[in-house]
């Protein structure tokens, strides 16, 4: 038989079996319990937690100063003195990597959480409520999608510098604004899914039961859209971390000398650095990679925990 052959992913009954095992608790407690038992998800969570701790505490533990430049120690390969080498100003890569993680992790998570929440709520509302609300939300989305983001960012950069907002806080305001503009794509996708889900019997049942709207959106529709949200979240985290460095061209990103994973990679964008000094770009690249993988695994775990019916672990 062809590669496509497979047997039915066996979910529903298995879920019933699992739910029997944890009967007698509220759905949320059950979900948490399921998440707790999900070993890959817990490992991912542990990894993220360790990363946060390392980024917060690490720079204090290392002997190198973040901003002190040393022309004589420029571009050293990794070694005993500098474990991950030094950059073109002789600054310790490891120290900068960990320090950069503070901003990059915060930026990645903040922007993703914001746009996912906005995109989900508005998309689900539009798809579920339909009618004029759907029309209004979608036309607003259309309009927002037409606004050119680059000049808007330049304006924002000028405005923030006019208002004398400290550079280290600007990035968060920018993330907020990008989320306010950037929910549109996700909202359209979610809306499409919800329109299909709306007519499935379990949603009709919630309507018949007269459950409040928020409960229908959060408890019944959310688990069904989680796979999409995970995809958006993982692509979003990587994108936000990398794009942060492009924002600094417009005065909106992190201002040098403060490091971020994005701008660390960005300074190694010449072919020579790429080929001959991998220590300049590999550490931040791998850090982003690991973060994205961890978030993906955690997201999968969350999905399984929230709606075991959708468990897709087949041959795990």
């Amino acid at each position, binding site marked *: 038989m062809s590669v496509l052959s497979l047997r039915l992913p066996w979910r529903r009954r298995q879920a019933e079996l*699992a739910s029997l*095992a944890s009967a007698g608790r509220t759905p949320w407690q059950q979900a948490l319990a399921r998440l707790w038992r999900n070993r890959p998800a817990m490992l991912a969570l542990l990894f993220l937690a360790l990363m946060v701790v390392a980024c917060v505490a690490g720079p204090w533990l290392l002997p190198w100063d973040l901003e002190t430049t040393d022309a004589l120690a420029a571009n050293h390969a990794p070694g005993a003195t500098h474990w991950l080498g030094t950059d073109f100003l002789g600054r310790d890569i490891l120290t900068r990597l960990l320090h950069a993680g503070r901003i990059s992790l915060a930026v990645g998570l903040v922007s993703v959480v914001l746009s996912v929440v906005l995109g989900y709520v508005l998309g689900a509302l539009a798809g579920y409520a339909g009618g004029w609300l759907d029309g209004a939300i979608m036309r607003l989305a259309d309009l927002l999608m037409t606004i050119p983001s680059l000049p808007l960012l330049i304006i924002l950069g000028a405005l923030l510098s006019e208002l004398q907002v400290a550079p280290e806080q600007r990035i968060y305001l920018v993330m907020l604004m990008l989320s306010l503009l950037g929910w549109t794509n996700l909202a359209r996708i979610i809306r499409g899914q919800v329109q299909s889900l709306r*007519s*499935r019997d379990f949603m009709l049942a919630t309507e018949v039961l007269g459950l409040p709207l928020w409960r229908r959106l959060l408890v019944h529709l959310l688990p069904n859209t989680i796979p999409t949200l995970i995809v958006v979240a993982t692509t979003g985290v990587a994108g936000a971390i990398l794009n942060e460095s492009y924002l600094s061209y417009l005065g909106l990103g992190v201002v040098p000398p403060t490091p971020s994973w994005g701008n660390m990679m960005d300074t190694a964008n010449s072919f020579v650095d790429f080929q001959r000094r991998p220590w300049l770009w590999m550490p931040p690249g791998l850090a982003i990679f690991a973060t994205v993988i961890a978030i993906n695994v955690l997201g999968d775990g969350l999905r399984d925990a929230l709606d075991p019916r959708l468990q897709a672990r087949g041959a*795990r």
Partner: protein
Amino acid sequence: MSQPLIEFDRLSVQFATEQGVARAVQDVSFAIQAGESVAVVGESGCGKSVTALSLMGLLPPAPACRLGGEVRLDAANLLALPPAAWRPLRGRDIAMVFQEPMSALNPVLSVGEQLMEPLLTHRQLSPAAAWQQAIALLQQVGIARPEAIAASYPHQLSGGMLQRVMLAIAISCQPRLLIADEPTTALDVTIQAQILDLLRRLQQASGMALLLITHDLGIVAEMADRVVVMYAGRVVETGSVRDIFRHPQHPYTQGLLASRPVPGRRLARLAAIPGQVPSPLALPDHCAFAERCPHARPACLHRQPVLQATSPTQQAACLLLSTEEAA
């Protein structure tokens, strides 16, 4: 007795889950004769649907799900078949009707298309002939405007209507066995009766065997020749409808009958039996019903009962029965 159509022989099914191994079905043995109606009864999670699906080959593949024993169709072990050899049997020899007609049909394909599929696959009809046949089948299941219904999509039809469509699909290739997994649970009471009536008529007309999976003893009494009672993955009692309803031997069967729904009130389920079904992840080595059993003795917490004949047509698995006999 002639060669049975279907024979479950010490079937066991285990699922590997994150939390451990779930023993969904253990040591299940029973047979279905050609043209016979057999009902499998039990609470949800007792393994009755898994048993049915093992017959269809629709359980997940190896590492996630492990099968033991044999399931035989015409004396050939289905579990030993490669997937490719199993597929042509589905829909042609064995068909299945599911609990929720709303989700069991594909929302983006028209009813007619879905009805034509098995005809095209198993009977190699031309599309035009398959369409004609589909209309005829819809008429056969009592649908008034078959052309209009065939052109419509599942979301445009009521639950009862959809279950009729499901039945039409199931009988389209004249299977020898029809599995009906809680076929009326999701439907209104009035529709339930119509569907059951239809099911019975179809069975009589074609002479196919019926494996009815239900928790509703009312339906069992109406439809079945024989009953298989399952509890926690095991068969606890089996016998003719008369045997089971007149003199149930197993305390669980007795409890089930005592908690039979009062007419007009559905979903009363098993209020009469205290406690809960044990988790398939943590099944005891002793009688799984012992904790809930009103007649349990100390021995019940130490041994696993086996099925034994209590009459020529009835068998039960209970230690109480064997100790009484021994005494």
